[in-house]
């Protein structure tokens, strides 16, 4: 890790952006395919080989549609809101590491856009700004369903953001840092139990934190079974009701980017990021491991959507405040206690 010329940073950032946007497009395809399998269907097959061109076709369709603005809408806010979701989702990628400093063509290259001291909090912060896209979009539509979706979203996001943050505190206590790069490389160390050696992934030392994080991450991204703000069956897609064409697509894409970012985030924090067999030898292998972990996570997201029914609103809030929050605090206390034992401050 070290300083590098600014142009290398630009190149790395550009590369990551490209990968993200492409993968976002193909995540839609991935979801449709997997969901179809769950429902004993085939999913898209016509467009290209195995429907691989379907995302492009969708993009063309959405861009070609008319951009409708309702009369009752607050025009400026209505036009502006989808951008918030989309950009803040992309912004989170700035602190997620894809590896350490590597040698490419004889130059030192940092495989992360930036490594700030408060990386983990940065992702939480961008996530908390992202919710304005939903709230403002819902409010500005001038539609009751949308407004209800927005209000639900506001309550839901505030609650689950708390749990998301709390579930990470255990890791901060163990590592003593909030820098995602540092946290990831902590997990590259090997723990040895006699003849066995396993990677020090925090999912092993923080199982409760991991479970809490996953639940909160699903809620943060408004995915099933926590998709109350957009609940099609009760709110007619909630805050997105009045949106069409490219602005609708922005929401849609923002949601998928959020999913990917959350998956990356979870992989980095709990599953060792790029850690895996051979990752120390060749950085490409590390990226491959990371992508695999993200794929597994996305699969999990889709799996949840395919199997679980939606929560009722009071169940959602009750779960957050009465179950998850106490558990998160318990996790913090227990972790801090073990940390004190480790420091020899207790016994």
């Amino acid at each position, binding site marked *: 890790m070290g300083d590098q010329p600014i142009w290398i940073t630009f190149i790395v950032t550009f590369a990551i952006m490209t990968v993200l946007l492409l993968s976002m497009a193909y995540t839609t395809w991935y979801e449709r395919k997997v969901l179809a399998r769950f429902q004993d269907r085939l999913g898209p097959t016509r467009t290209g080989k195995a429907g691989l061109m379907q995302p492009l076709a969708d993009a063309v369709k959405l861009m070609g549609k008319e951009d409708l603005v309702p009369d009752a809408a607050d025009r400026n806010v209505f036009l502006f809101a989808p951008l918030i979701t989309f950009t803040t989702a992309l912004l989170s990628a700035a602190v997620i590491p894809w590896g350490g400093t590597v040698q490419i063509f004889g130059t030192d290259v940092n495989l992360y856009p930036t490594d700030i*001291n*408060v990386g983990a909090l940065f992702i939480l912060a961008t996530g908390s700004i992202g919710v304005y896209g939903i709230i403002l979009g819902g409010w500005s539509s001038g539609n009751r369903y949308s407004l209800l979706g927005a209000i639900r979203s506001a*309550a839901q996001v*505030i609650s689950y*953001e708390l749990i998301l943050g709390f579930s990470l505190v255990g890791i901060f206590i163990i590592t003593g840092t909030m*820098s995602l790069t540092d946290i990831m490389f902590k997990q590259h160390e090997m723990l040895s139990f006699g003849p066995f050696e396993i990677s020090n992934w925090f999912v092993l030392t923080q199982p409760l934190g991991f479970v809490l994080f996953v639940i909160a991450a699903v809620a943060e991204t408004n995915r099933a079974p926590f998709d109350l703000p957009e609940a099609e069956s009760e709110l007619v897609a909630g805050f997105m009701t009045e949106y069409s064409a490219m602005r609708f697509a922005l929401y849609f894409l923002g949601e998928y980017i959020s999913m990917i970012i959350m998956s990356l985030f979870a992989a980095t924090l709990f599953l060792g990021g790029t850690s895996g067999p051979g990752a120390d030898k060749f950085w490409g292998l590390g990226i491959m491991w990371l992508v695999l972990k993200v794929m597994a996570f996305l699969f999990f997201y889709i799996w949840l959507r395919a199997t679980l029914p939606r929560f009722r609103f009071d169940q959602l809030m009750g779960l957050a405040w009465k179950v998850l929050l106490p558990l998160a605090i318990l996790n913090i206390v227990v972790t801090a206690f073990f940390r004190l034992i480790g420091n020899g401050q207790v016994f």
Partner: protein
Amino acid sequence: MSWELVFFAVFSAAMLLCGLGVVAFENPVHSAVALVGSFINVAALFVMLGAEFLGVLQIIVYTGAVLVLVLFTIMLIDPTKLPEFYVGAPLQRFASVVVGAILLAEIGVAIITRTALEQIGPHTEAMVQQMGGNVQAIGQVMLSEYALAFEIASLVLTVGVVGAVVIGLPNRMVEPNTVTMSLGHTRGSSDMLAAGPKFESPMNIPAERYTAPVGERTVVMTKDPDAYTHPGETSK
């Protein structure tokens, strides 16, 4: 002109413009959005000053929590009941502007004529880096030197939350524990019984006004419609 100055100019201009927007927009939602923008720029200024933890915290706490709550509240309020833009008295408005202008001038003078502190504290940038960064430095100072203040702050938060819950409880609203029934009316009508209200009541009650407790509530039954309402008994 350094890049820093450029960034500073951009951030602060955005911040002040958004701040003006908060004051000037008529719609509270627009004000809130402007405030979000202002706060994001404040956070950027914090980062420029080497306080990235506070910057992130500013966003998480203010924009992520407080302003979402504000928006939540705005959406709960009936938009037709929003008050007018300005406070009533023109004198108040005029005086406010004058006071603001004088205050700005005074602070400006104070800033220009101030002398910089010569002492340099222990937390130079190198020192902060050695401690592991801004977060660690704040943590160490806050939990050692300001441990008591930290505890008091948590107490203040607890009290605040409890207070908010108590104020927001629906039970605070007037919920009558007394139900009054007039036997002098036919059900679902405000007309009196045709043939003598007092004598042809469908129920036989021992007095003109009969009070009987039913669970936590009290039911008052009256024969005479004039005794139907009794001051001070509905909200007991």
